[in-house]
């Protein structure tokens, strides 16, 4: 077991080395230059060159890559060119808004999607079914940014019920934080609720055609007891899997929502960093994300080995 653990852990090193190299080369090989952006439109080439020298950007790419390796192994992701702070600090600061948004949106997606799927399946072919599935179709089709802007116009500008944009930490002011999060969570969650609704409906339909459901009905149980007590619990497993996938999709989709609703999360951080070629931030965010995926996979592999002793490496 210990040998397996060490083997798997060592295998992570080349994976991370490849990730570090690919990320570094990708961002450096696309055209654009952080210094030209930083020094403004009227800066002269001589000024630009001097600042490139000061930041070490005039050095050959392999030298810059080597310096990047040496920093990463020491746990230092470098300093942002624009934000005047270490990249790791910037990432930690932005993690909370993204996580809060993602979980809130997931809550919305599940709260809308699962009941809609159950009702549609329980009333298959009815007006309810058609209406809910039409809603799901719309949810899949409507672009997130369009929905967001319309939510802002309706609920903030016209009705004045909620703030148009912004963010407050739950730790600072939970009520204000909640008010700021309603519209972003709704617009991000609504799209994903469509997917959950459709999956819930098909899983429920499959469950409702099982023998045990027929038996339950034959026993004289009420429709409510059959749907919720028997079919729903069995349909839940694939739905939970989809909810897990949705979580990953939401983290990606949060980028647009963060920009429209002005939420200072990781999505906005990486988009700004790409646009202004803040190399250390782009490298840092991608690296941390990749590392998280690798570590999760490693943990799952190790868990498999723990649960089933027959699983061994090679």
């Amino acid at each position: 077991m210990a040998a397996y653990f060490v083997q798997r852990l060592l295998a992570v090193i080349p994976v991370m080395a490849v990730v570090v190299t690919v990320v570094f080369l990708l961002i450096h090989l696309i055209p654009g230059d952080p210094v030209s952006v930083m020094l403004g439109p009227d800066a002269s080439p001589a000024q630009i060159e001097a600042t490139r020298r000061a930041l070490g950007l005039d050095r050959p790419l392999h030298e810059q890559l080597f310096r990047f390796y040496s920093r990463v192994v020491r746990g230092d992701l470098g300093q942002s060119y624009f934000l005047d702070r270490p990249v790791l600090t910037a990432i930690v600061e932005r993690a909370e808004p993204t996580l809060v948004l993602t979980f809130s949106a997931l809550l919305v997606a599940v709260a809308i999607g699962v009941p809609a799927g159950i009702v549609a399946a329980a009333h298959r072919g009815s007006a309810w079914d058609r209406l809910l599935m039409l809603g799901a179709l719309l949810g899949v089709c409507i672009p997130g940014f369009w929905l967001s802007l319309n939510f802002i116009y309706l609920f903030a500008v016209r009705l004045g019920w909620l703030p148009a944009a912004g963010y407050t930490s739950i730790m600072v002011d939970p009520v204000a934080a909640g008010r700021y999060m309603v519209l972003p969570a709704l617009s991000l969650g609504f799209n994903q609720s469509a997917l959950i609704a459709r999956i819930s409906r098909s899983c429920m339909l499959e469950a409702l055609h099982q023998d045990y459901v027929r038996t339950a009905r034959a026993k004289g149980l009420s429709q409510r007891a059959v749907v919720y007590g028997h079919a729903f619990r069995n349909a839940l497993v694939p739905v939970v899997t989809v909810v897990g996938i949705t979580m990953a999709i939401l983290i990606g989709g949060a980028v647009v929502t963060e920009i429209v609703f002005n939420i200072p999360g990781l999505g906005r951080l990486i988009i700004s960093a790409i646009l202004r070629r803040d190399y250390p931030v782009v490298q840092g965010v991608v690296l941390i994300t990749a590392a998280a995926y690798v570590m999760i996979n490693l943990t799952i592999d190790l868990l498999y080995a723990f649960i089933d002793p027959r699983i061994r490496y090679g």
Partner: protein
Amino acid sequence: MVPVITRRSIVVAAAFLVGMLVPVLAFAQTKGGVLRVGNLGEPPALDAHWTTASITETLTNHIYEGLYSLDASNRPIPMLAEGHTVSKDGLTYTFKLRQGIKFHNGKEMGSDDVVASLTRWGKQSIYGKALFAQVAEMRALDRYTVEFKLKEKSAIVLISLAVPNNFGAIYPKEIAEKFPPEVKVTEYVGTGPFRLAEWKPDQYIRMVRFDDYKSRGEKPNGYGGGKTAYLDEIRWIPVPEVATRVAQVETGELEFADDLNLDAYDRLKKNPHVQTIVSKPYYWLVAVFNKKEGLMTNQKLRQAWQAALDIEPIMKNVAGGHSEFYRMDSSLAPVEISTWHTKLGGLPWNERNKDKAKRLLQEAGYKREPIRFMTTQEYKWMYDFALLTKQQLEDVGFSIDLQVVDWATLVKRRNNSKEYDVFTTGMGAFYDPTHHIYLTPSWPGWTTDEGIAKLQAELARETDPKKRMALWEQQTRQFYEKVPVIRYGDLFGLRAMRTTVKGFNDKTERIRFYNVWLEK
């Protein structure tokens, strides 16, 4: 009895009314409140010497001050300087500094701070470098006197010290010497009416009133004169999505929104709580030719481009059909820079002459080789005018390869003469003829024409205002003959503020919030 209105009674009544009004007006300008300003994004630095970025200019002018500033006519007026004298031969400038001016860290500003700051500025800023090319020596004569000895007579000393962009901000000596010119300052201590309290990237920059600020005695005047910080705090909030900035000023989550899309104008105008502001000057649109290598080194080809253009439809389209947002003008300085605005007739601007363009193309020996025209969609107006230009030019026989890239790529590639023939950008306000960067050999596009360079050098030396104007008119005529860049029309910007914001000066190119207060 019929009341008799005598002259005396009118005077008494008027005095009474004035007496009543003065305290009301004084009361109206109350201190307090937080002004939330939505702008496009984060500044790359809060070091005024270091970058020409306009967002840095806007922010840093609240924290720092220079020796001079610009008045309402965009002419230099003293700010941290009390005044200056010039020796008879014009080679020595002696500046007297104001006394008792405190930095935000409590230290009193003196000549050592000025010398250290301007030395740093002279090595980094585009305006500082131009000025210090003419300075033989700068030294502190005493605690409050600084002397400049020039190599030759110069017309640009005061204006260079007064420009608001990339400006000669005075930092404490310790900070100016701690950060080399090419490394941006990260300790923000100035003498301005607001001091930096907190900077949370992508969330806000908080500036609070500097209670020890010593204002000049004059009335507010352009960027200068007396400055009063009525607001407790200015909170600069980066809101990258323009539709969100519009919505937030409508809902009152922002008191001020800068840099808005023109298509929001009609909607905002209908809102009784919002006041729209047409910001002038903003940019004149420009296509910059690569004159170092490639097709556009051919002057005939550049002239053909100029002759073919019908500028008004382009401007109208870029301004979203709103005539309030563009102006047709051939002067290289906008109307607002009245000192340098020219009204010359007979210039080959907006000629709309297809026959002339075709003839020039033939004379240029042009064989429909694709011309690489670089633009970006990050600034919609740039993309729009590039697209319309392409259509007009192809009508007369040009072949335009429109290359749409992101802004970061454009600003990188424009420094490499092998990568393009033309690029789009905008020209903001230049307060002196010598500051027009597109007429210099060092800026992308590389204007190395001897005639243009000669006149620029003369403009830098000549100190007689009338002679300078004559030279500038000559330069303008030469510009339209040699066509280093194409001057389109003036485009204006859109800003919006809540009607509770009072005292805002909408006549300056960039926003300033000293002398601004909030109505309770």
